Structures are given as C-alpha cells and as structure tokens.
C-alpha cells in the first residue's frame, strides 16, 4: 500500500463509460499539480490498449522496454501424455488431445500451474513478449511520464498494465489514467491506489456505467469520488445518485465549446484557462482530506 502523505500519493482516474474525459482530467490534474509541486508529479498512462495521454502532455520518451509473460514449452520426450497440465489449466491454454500436446499461448495467463503439476518436469516456462513500456518526461522535464502498449492481437492487458505500474515513483504524486470500463484492465489500474476519481457525464448511460465503476472501485477497496464532465446537459440522475449514496462530487466541468476546442488542439483544462488550475488543485485538496481521514481510521499514522 502506498503512503498517505501529500508527498506521495497514487490517484487513479477511471470511468465506467468511455469518452467521459478521464484522460482530460488526469492530464489536467497532473499539470495543475506540477505548478504547486514542481518536479513531484508523475503521469502513468495505464490504458495500454489505447494510450492517449501522450497526445495531451507531449512527453519526450525513451526507448521501448519489452513486457514478457511466461508460457509453457513442453518437452515431448519427457511428457507421458498424462493430461495433468490440461486438467490444471483454467484457461484451456494447454491440451493433451490423444497423443498430441498443444499449447495456445494467446489463451495462457502465465500462472505456471501446468509446469507445477507436471509429474515428469516436461514443462518449462519461457518468455513471450506481449507489449512494451516507455518512460520519459513532460512539462519541460518536470513531470515523469510512463506509458505502455499491448501488442495488437494479444488479449490480456494486465501484464502490461502491471509493468507500467512498476515504474511508479513512490516519492512522487502519481496520477494513473485508467482504461475505460470496469473489467480487469481498469481493476488492475485502480487496485492499490489511494483514491479513484470517477469521471462521468450527466446522462442515463453515464449514470448506469458510473454505478458499475463505483461498485468495482469499492470491491478493490479504493475510496472514490466523482467528476461530472459536460455539466449542464442531460439529466439530474448522476447528481441524485451521488447525493443519495453520499458520493462526493469533486468537480463539475461545464459543457463548454471552448473546452472541446482546447482539447481538440491537444490542450488540457489547465492550459485552456488558468482558473482551472485552482479548481483542480482544490480537488486534490479534497482527495487528500479523504485519504488522510481513511488512514487515521485505519490506525495507520
């Protein structure tokens, strides 16, 4: 678990529904906080299937580092075709079909169960590259930037997400831009962070996906709050839901053409109108309070 002092915090930015403004909020927050804590901020793009934070922060990035998973390799001389590996595998990634031993690396979760149960030691785990990570800096070298990419055609994002998160600097305030949805890639991103900002839009679709995202955040034990983007359109459902469930609304970003225009130019909220920086820093203050309170309640100093 990460510490709770303001010198080091991990905040994930997620949403049930895609396109609500996660990356806009995450990158805007990073830039705003960098003004207050220069050189102390890190932006981690955890959407490894479709990273886009680099479009807004324009980082200078270093070389790609490969991300590997372990997949089984079977020595057919040692294998007795007993089928213990196939029985152990929960993903149908290894099968013994009569005399044939088949592995399906793209189904493999890299758990190692097959190698573990093999009675003759016929299975070795070998590396298979599934993606890459890259690190660098943004905002004239002040913001540390990490991004990752899952190879096209590969199905499991979580190994690459994990590799990206390994680059988190424990001495910085880390803002994690999550992928959309509430499935494994989002959970892998949010789990272990101190707080999750859920960005939504005030529509029935936004509300429906927000509920899923709140439930998911709670299941992984991360306190959450809401940013309502495109405030002023749609229905009151999201506000009513937040009021009824005690969910804190951290910020309301109005539906304004100038924001969309800025975004289309690759500008964040923090750059489009300087006033936004105060709002974003204020939001961070609210998050700090929640995290500090939670730590006190847990008896952690």
């Amino acid at each position: 678990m990460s510490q709770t002092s303001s010198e080091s915090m991990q905040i994930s930015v997620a949403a049930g529904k895609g396109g609500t403004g996660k990356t806009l909020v995450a990158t805007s927050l990073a830039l705003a906080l960098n003004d207050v804590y220069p050189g102390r901020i890190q932006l981690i793009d955890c959407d490894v299937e479709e990273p886009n934070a680099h479009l807004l922060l324009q980082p200078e990035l270093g070389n790609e580092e490969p991300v590997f998973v372990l997949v089984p390799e079977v020595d057919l001389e040692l294998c007795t075709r007993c089928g213990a590996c196939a029985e152990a595998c929960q993903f149908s990634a290894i099968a013994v079909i009569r005399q044939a031993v088949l592995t399906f690396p793209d189904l493999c979760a890299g758990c190692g169960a097959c190698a573990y149960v093999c009675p003759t030691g016929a299975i070795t785990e070998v590396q298979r590259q599934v993606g890459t990570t890259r690190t660098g800096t943004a905002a004239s070298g002040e913001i540390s930037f990490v991004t990752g990419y899952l190879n096209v055609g590969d199905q499991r994002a979580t190994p690459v997400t994990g590799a990206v998160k390994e680059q988190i600097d424990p001495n910085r305030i880390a803002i994690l831009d999550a992928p959309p949805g509430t499935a494994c890639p989002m959970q892998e991103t949010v789990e272990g962070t101190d707080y999750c900002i859920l960005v939504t839009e005030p529509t029935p679709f936004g509300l429906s996906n927000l509920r899923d995202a709140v439930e998911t955040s709670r299941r992984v034990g991360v306190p959450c709050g809401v940013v309502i983007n495109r405030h002023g359109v749609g229905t009151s459902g999201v506000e009513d839901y937040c009021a009824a469930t005690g969910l804190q609304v951290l910020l309301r970003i109005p539906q304004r053409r100038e924001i969309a225009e800025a975004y289309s130019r690759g500008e964040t909220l923090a750059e489009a109108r300087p006033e936004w920086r105060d709002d974003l820093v204020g939001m961070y203050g609210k998050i700090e309070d929640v995290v500090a309170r939670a730590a006190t309640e847990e008896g952690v100093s």
Partner: protein
Amino acid sequence: MKVAISSAGKDLTSPIDPRFGRCAYFVIVDTETMEAQGYENPGALAGTGAGVAAAQLVANGGAEAVISKVLGPYSFAALREGDITAYTGASGTVKDAVEQFNNGELEVLADANAEADAGSKRRG
C-alpha cells in the same frame, strides 16, 4: 469405435447441437454397441478457447471422431492435431447422427468453418 456428437441433451434421443465449441453436451457413442454416455461441455461456459476445452473432453472420452456442424479455429486445430476426424452433414437426433455416420452419409470437414467465438451468445 467411439464418436462424440455435439448435442442439446445428454442421450441418444437428444437433438444435435450444431456448435462444437459451445454445445451444451457431448454424447459419446460406441458405434458398434450404441452404448452412449452424455457429458456437459465445459466449453459452453468458456469466454474464449471453448473449442480447446471441448476437444479435451471428447479426447478424454476416447472418441476418435466427432459429429458436429460449426467448428472454429481452436476446435479444428485441437481435433486435427489429435487425429480426431470431424464429420458434418448430420441431422435429427444423436441416434440419427450415428446411423448416418455408420451408413457413410456424412462428410469429412476439411477445415474450420467459423470464426473464433462464433457460437457465443455475446456476438452480434
């Protein structure tokens, strides 16, 4: 010899199920004695790679051939590597399918004839 038929039910009177990877059951029938054993198909619940789980089941049951209709890439590859021949063109119940097989009325499937996960309800 033993033949596995993709089926909607557990016995000889059940209608055949056209999907190999995600059929509800397999009925493994001894073509000489007509003894039949029904099995729930683990592939029916699989998110992906259903054909592998299904092929594993029929191989474990001692089948040397399968009778089905729609086989995706995982299904076909697993069966082919294991030297299990896939037959198609059957109709009616499991019992009808075995009789059609014994009479030589069925065709050998030369390749996968569906995309991965085609039998899943999630598609479309």
